[in-house]
């Protein structure tokens, strides 16, 4: 097994207005491995990224960097860097690319040049004197990746890195991330709402619903043999040319209110297989073998 | 309701701050001029009056600042603002009581006219932007850049000195006895025309510009586009959709600019020797009448705070969401 770089234990975030955005999330990120965190809008997956980047303080739970409680933020962010979803918003419009790339090099006293950073993301050096508005979405996202690499981190938190990009260039950016992971031996957290890309890109996949992780395991198993009813619905709703068009059950209702989540299982109001017990008691984490698990009452017997 | 409560608390804090500033100013800045003034009037001031001036300006060195502050509040709450030197020996509160109605009348009427007129013109100018109406912008800018008092001077030169159609000064004819007669009311209106027109002309420009810009901004919103697409008449889209939303910031801006409007009104009163608070302040400044100046500041500030509270109520009525501006 690869070395564990970043570990989250029982991360919980409740916002002041009462929204319970993230509830008891535990994750392990290993060097050279991509971990996907899949969920719909509002499932709390972006909050997990911000918690791990320490951009927002956690309500409870802890983060361990190489097995230790992290110290000052500057030291921490040298190892853990983040890529934001929207490359049109994550680069300051008033600064040239050169400024955006030089700052992290200075902050973390790295000897590389901004030219080398651009080269690493396969962009020409003359981009340095351009402004963000002169770049395309894909080029901007590459610049954002270069900025994250400047600190020479060991963990990259990629918050939906391709969802704002044209479909045609998504693969290019994902392949770039994979190359970088191989070359720099990075631990990557890949956050996405697209479970198909998780299968393609990630070694391990976690599924989030309503602020909680409901299923986890290696990507192949989770995407090919989903256990949790939510994961099954998620996969069924993704278009797949290989699958014959059958009538898939559509989930009822809307994503749960994080302000007052339902008692018991948070998915129970929409779950086609819900039993009375699901309405009242939160399900335990049931192991399905080979590291695959789901938080669902359906698999209680398997455990027992 | 919570909104109004919050605002009321804020106004109370502001009133407290203004009163405290009034208390601190003469104590922080050299108080010699007041001492000199009191010495000059020594023989004619009663012991009580001297004592209350001492309290107001902190000349009594034997008491602690806290004691001074408490007796200062005591004086205020009993309406004792000291004696005016200009109108010696009338108490400041009495001078203010006599001039306040004039200012309130003049300001109330002109503000309502100017706000209403400015809003209507602004809505129209915003609606027809890109046409000749845009020429209004530089013209109104020019007028809003003219100081109130100078416009007043010009008005006097043209309409009172040159053509002699309106009186140059005062709130009513010199010989007339104030009373509730129709004759007196007519005279008051007649005397108010020039100052009122001056204020309206100077202040309307600001409302026009503000409303025009809000109209232009609001009109790019999707609900205006949808209203057009529904086939509603131009008039209806303009009034019920665009203007209805554009007026909200104008109303909150109204409250905030009141302090400015008050300043302008005071100046116009000075120029026209209109018997309101502004003219009283002017006389106080010339005579270095500190009790009077401080009294004017207090009264004007409190009046502005009350007016602000009224504007808040208006905003609440206009905006169904009772959207709470953070501040």
């Amino acid at each position, binding site marked *: 097994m690869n070395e564990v770089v970043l570990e989250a234990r029982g991360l919980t975030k409740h916002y002041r207005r009462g929204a319970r955005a993230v509830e008891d999330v535990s994750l392990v990120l290993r060097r050279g491995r991509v971990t996907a965190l899949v969920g719909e809008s509002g499932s709390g997956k972006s909050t997990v990224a911000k918690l791990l980047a320490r951009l927002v303080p956690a309500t409870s739970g802890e983060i361990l960097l190489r097995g230790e409680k992290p110290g000052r933020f500057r030291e921490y962010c040298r190892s853990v860097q983040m890529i934001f979803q929207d490359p049109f918003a994550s680069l*300051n419009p008033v600064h040239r690319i050169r400024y955006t790339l030089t700052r992290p090099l200075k902050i973390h006293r790295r000897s590389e040049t901004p030219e080398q950073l651009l080269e690493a993301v396969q962009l020409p050096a003359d981009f340095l004197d351009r402004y963000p508005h002169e770049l395309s979405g894909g080029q901007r996202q590459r610049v954002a990746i270069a900025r994250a690499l400047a600190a020479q981190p060991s963990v990259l938190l990629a918050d939906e890195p391709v969802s704002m990009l044209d479909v045609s260039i998504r693969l290019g950016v994902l392949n770039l991330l994979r190359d970088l992971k191989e070359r720099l031996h990075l631990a990557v957290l890949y956050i996405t709402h697209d479970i198909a890309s998780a299968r393609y890109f990630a070694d391990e996949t976690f599924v989030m619903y309503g602020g909680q992780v409901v299923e986890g395991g290696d990507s192949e198993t989770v995407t090919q043999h989903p256990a949790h009813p939510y994961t099954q619905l998620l996969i069924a709703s993704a278009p797949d040319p290989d699958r014959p068009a059958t009538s898939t059950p559509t989930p009822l209702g809307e994503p749960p209110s994080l302000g007052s989540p339902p008692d018991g299982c948070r998915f129970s109001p929409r779950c086609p297989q819900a039993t009375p017990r699901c309405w009242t008691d939160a399900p335990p984490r049931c192991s399905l073998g080979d590291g695959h698990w789901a938080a669902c009452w359906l698999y209680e017997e398997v455990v027992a | 309701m919570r909104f109004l409560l919050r605002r009321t608390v804020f106004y109370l804090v502001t009133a407290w701050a203004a009163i405290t500033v009034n208390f601190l100013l003469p104590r922080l800045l050299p108080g010699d001029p007041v001492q000199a003034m009191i010495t000059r009037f020594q023989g004619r001031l009663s012991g009580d009056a001297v004592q209350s001036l001492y309290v107001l300006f902190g000349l009594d060195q034997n008491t602690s600042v806290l004691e001074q502050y408490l007796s200062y509040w005591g004086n205020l709450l009993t309406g004792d603002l000291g004696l005016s030197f200009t109108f010696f020996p009338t108490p400041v509160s009495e001078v203010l009581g006599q001039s306040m109605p004039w200012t309130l009348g003049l300001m109330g009427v002109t503000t309502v006219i100017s706000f209403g007129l400015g809003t209507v013109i602004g809505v129209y100018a915003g609606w027809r932007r890109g046409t000749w109406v845009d020429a209004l912008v530089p013209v109104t800018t020019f007028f809003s850049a003219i100081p109130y008092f100078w416009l007043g001077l*010009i008005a006097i030169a043209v309409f009172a000195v040159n053509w002699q159609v309106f009186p140059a000064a005062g709130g009513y004819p010199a010989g007339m006895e104030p009373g509730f007669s129709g004759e007196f009311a007519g005279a008051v209106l007649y005397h108010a025309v020039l100052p009122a027109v001056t204020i309206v002309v100077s202040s309307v420009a600001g409302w026009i510009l503000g409303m025009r810009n809000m109209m232009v901004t609001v009109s790019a919103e999707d609900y205006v586009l949808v209203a057009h697409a529904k086939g509603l008449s131009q008039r209806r889209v303009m009034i019920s959709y665009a203007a209805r939303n554009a007026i909200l910031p104008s109303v909150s801006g109204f409250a905030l600019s009141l*302090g400015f409007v008050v300043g302008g009104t005071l100046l116009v009163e000075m120029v026209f020797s209109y018997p309101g608070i502004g003219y009283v302040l002017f006389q106080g400044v010339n005579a270095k009448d500190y009790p009077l*100046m401080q009294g004017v500041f207090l009264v004007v500030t409190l009046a502005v705070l009350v007016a602000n509270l009224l504007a808040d109520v208006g905003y609440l009525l206009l905006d169904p969401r009772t959207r709470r501006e953070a501040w």
Partner: protein
Amino acid sequence: MNAKTRAGLALLGFFGLIAVVGPWIAPYDPSAMGPDLLQPPSGAHWFGTTMTGQDVFSQVLVGTRGVLVVGLVAGVLATVLSIVIGVSAGFLGGAADELLSALSNIFLVVPALPLIIIVASFLPDSGDLLIAVVISLTAWAWGARVLRAQTLSLRNRDYVLAARATGERTWRLIVFEVLPNLTAVIASGFVGTVIFAVLLEITLSFIGVASISNWNWGTVLFWAQSNQALSQGAWWWFVPAGLCIAFLGTALALVNFGIDEYANPRLRSAGRGKVGFTPVERS
């Protein structure tokens, strides 16, 4: 840059030039009394003379500097105050925000003119710079309010978060990530404050609160008013100074429109005549 902005800048440049060279090109000593008493404009005295034979043209020329200096000094001080208070309030949030917001609101609501009159008349010496400082103390609140609102909307932009994630310090986030995006707002606030300061200074001189020994347009009007220039029909005594104020104010306001339109493209008026907002076909 459109015609309005250009006209504003040109006018502003003209007044700036006068402010620099005014005292040298003035044909007379503005305080020197001459034999021509209360004369209307003529070849010798372009703007006529005062009751004591002073040359009004020279007074206006010499007085320009005082007006602009006070306006600029007050504008700079007030803008700095408004940036420090407004941006900190917006960026820091929480209790600091509550406190700073309440402070600016108090300064906004309290009527400035009577307050300044009191402060200025308590001051033993009310020279130009002192007046500028006093004006700036009452003029910063509006800018602070606007900047706070803008900062609040910028604070959680991704690029600020991203800069924080690279390890930038808070002060650098404020100065290098947030502030540059507020340039237009700050510039517009600065110009607005200068207008406010100029008007207030002239007003104070006119009332006689500020020192009347320094020449500025307000002092000219003060002497005209106290010598009953109006009732003697001496229009030349108060018209030039007033027009200068109005033109200077207009110039500044036009520059401000330019900045506003730059920052808010919606305000740019379309070149061709267009009624309403949507190109709807009407029968």
